[in-house]
């Protein structure tokens, strides 16, 4: 009934994605790599911008109120909140917050398809499978065997390519190590970004690059006032843009 606080004890690892808006060109390579890695099917011919399955959506934002000014591209995957508004609302525990990594996982095989989590998420990073997923002849051979295909009628979202974390753990375990090599766990979007706008790592490690970037004065979080504690951090050298993107949409002037 009441809302659980996940921030009372932060996870041992806090996998964090830093998006440098000054570097993002809006090329969409992150979204394409994400789709290939996570077996997201080609869009149904009747799908619209609001009914397609997208885990990493690139929005366009303008610095001025009148919609003028240069365009800034804002890639938005699931924000992997430390105090996620979606976990508590799911009636059948199809969303889990991993206390070891801080990753919010969506479990499609448990999902009822009620879409309450989509209503609860202020970042709108989830997709409902409105159509049965279909791949053109021959394309099924390219599917990633580490990621299960989701059926029609369930909700899905980004999970920081958690299958890559599992592979890195297996590799570390085989080598007799207890911790993974950070280089072994990089999500597909980060790997694919040609302008190095995306950085990924464990922010719990104070010496890591993402920890330093997340602390930097040019960094901010979307809808920070809501207290969701996102682990996707945005950066921009433009203070006007930072201020505009920190607001809640309903207050936009």
């Amino acid at each position, binding site marked *: 009934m009441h809302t659980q606080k996940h921030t009372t004890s932060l996870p041992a690892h806090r996998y964090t994605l830093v998006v440098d808006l000054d570097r993002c060109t809006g090329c969409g390579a992150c979204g394409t790599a994400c789709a290939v890695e996570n077996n997201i099917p080609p869009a149904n011919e009747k799908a619209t911008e609001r009914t397609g399955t997208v885990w990493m959506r690139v929005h*366009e934002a303008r610095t001025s109120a009148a919609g003028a000014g240069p365009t800034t591209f804002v890639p938005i995957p699931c924000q992997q909140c430390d105090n996620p508004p979606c976990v508590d609302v799911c009636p059948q525990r199809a969303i889990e917050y991993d206390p070891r990594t801080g990753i919010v996982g969506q479990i499609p095989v448990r999902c009822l*398809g009620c879409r309450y989590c989509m209503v609860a998420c*202020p970042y709108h990073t989830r997709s409902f499978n409105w159509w049965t997923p279909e791949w053109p002849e021959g394309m099924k051979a390219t599917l990633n065997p580490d990621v299960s295909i989701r059926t029609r009628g369930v909700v899905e979202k980004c999970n920081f390519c958690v299958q890559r974390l599992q592979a890195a753990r297996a590799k570390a375990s085989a080598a007799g190590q207890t911790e993974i090599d950070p280089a072994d766990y990089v999500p597909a979007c980060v790997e694919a970004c040609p302008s190095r706008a995306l950085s990924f790592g464990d922010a719990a490690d104070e010496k890591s690059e993402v920890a330093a970037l997340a602390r930097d004065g040019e960094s901010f979080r979307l809808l920070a006032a809501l207290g*969701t504690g996102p682990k996707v951090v945005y950066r921009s050298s433009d203070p006007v843009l930072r201020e505009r993107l920190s607001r809640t949409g309903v207050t*936009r002037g």
Partner: protein
Amino acid sequence: MDDTLIGRGLKRTPLPRFLLWLVPWAALLALGLYAVYLCFAVGLNQTNMDNRFAFGLWIYLDLTVIALGAGAFFTGFLLYILKKKELKAVINSAVVIGFICYSGAVGILMVDVGQPLRAWFTFWHPNVHSMLTEVTFCLTLYLSVLAIEYAPLVLKNRRIKEVPGALVLEHQLHKVMVVFAGIGTLLSFFHQGSLGGLYGVLRGNPFAFRSQIGIWPTTFFLFILSAAAVGPSFILLTTWLVGKVSKKRLVSPEVFQTLAKISGSLLLVYVVLKGIDSLVWINSTSPKTGVQVSSFYAHPPFGTWVLFAEVVLLGLVPAAMLLSRRVRARTGLLVLAAAMACAGVVLNRYVMTIQTLALPSLPFDSFLSYSPSWQETAAFLAVLGYGVLLYSISFRWLNLFPEERELATKG
């Protein structure tokens, strides 16, 4: 056959005319069932909902009919627990209306979810922190209670009670009805509240989010109170409507008076508490999330008029009308007040469902619009068709208004 099913001393329209009356409602139901078939066979792409407008007409329908159907639990509570004997005149009708509303809501909910065959997961792997879990549990259990409350009405039918054991079963059920009324009240309190809690817990949505009392957001309590307030008004409204359509006196005027007084009193309490809740929301809850409430009403057509209409025009005004002896003395005004009270709750559920989703949340979002597809509309109307069909059949062959015979004899 038909004559022997109609209760002794009751007059009903000739069978052919009755069947003709059923035709349009049956057609509505058939069209809706075809739309439901499309949603099951082809998928929810048949609707106009999307990843941003993830709830739509059907959730709105669920919230509304469950609020209006609250007359069943509340009349049962007043009659069996608080011993308001005069409400015996409408309890049967209230049970049928409650059953229609709840079964319609559960039916639509099963179409609305993407994987209806996984509905049992909620019972087997429940997330006890989810308001939807509470709604699911209480809704299904209360529907079972309503079915049990409906059973004695069927068992008392002239022909069915000739079946050996039928009357004994009816008598035994009647003896324990106070227990079911109590269980029904408890279950209803929780699911009415949880339906309000669905929105009140949305921490990511400053428009819907409300401060908590104990472990529940204030919308939990407001939904219980608003449903309890309009339930009797809806019973009044439907009883009046059935009387008009059937051209019969079904209950004595005192029953309308009692229903109106109860509805008016509760509505007044609701309006006061809703006003206090709105003030807390305006001055504290929403500003804490960095949003001034005026921002929510800067997106036409949802201006401040919505709040005014909900609290004053369709809240305070009908409450005052229902509590006024002079208004209650005139049936036309009384029915108008009851209709306004119901409209207030219908508007509240609309605002909570649609305005919550339409308002922009990310800084580059725009105000969203949504209009239901014909399949959504047809399924929505099918609930209406189903309701009229079941009520008409129940009215013809079951004794929904115990005073009807006596009033007919008096002329």
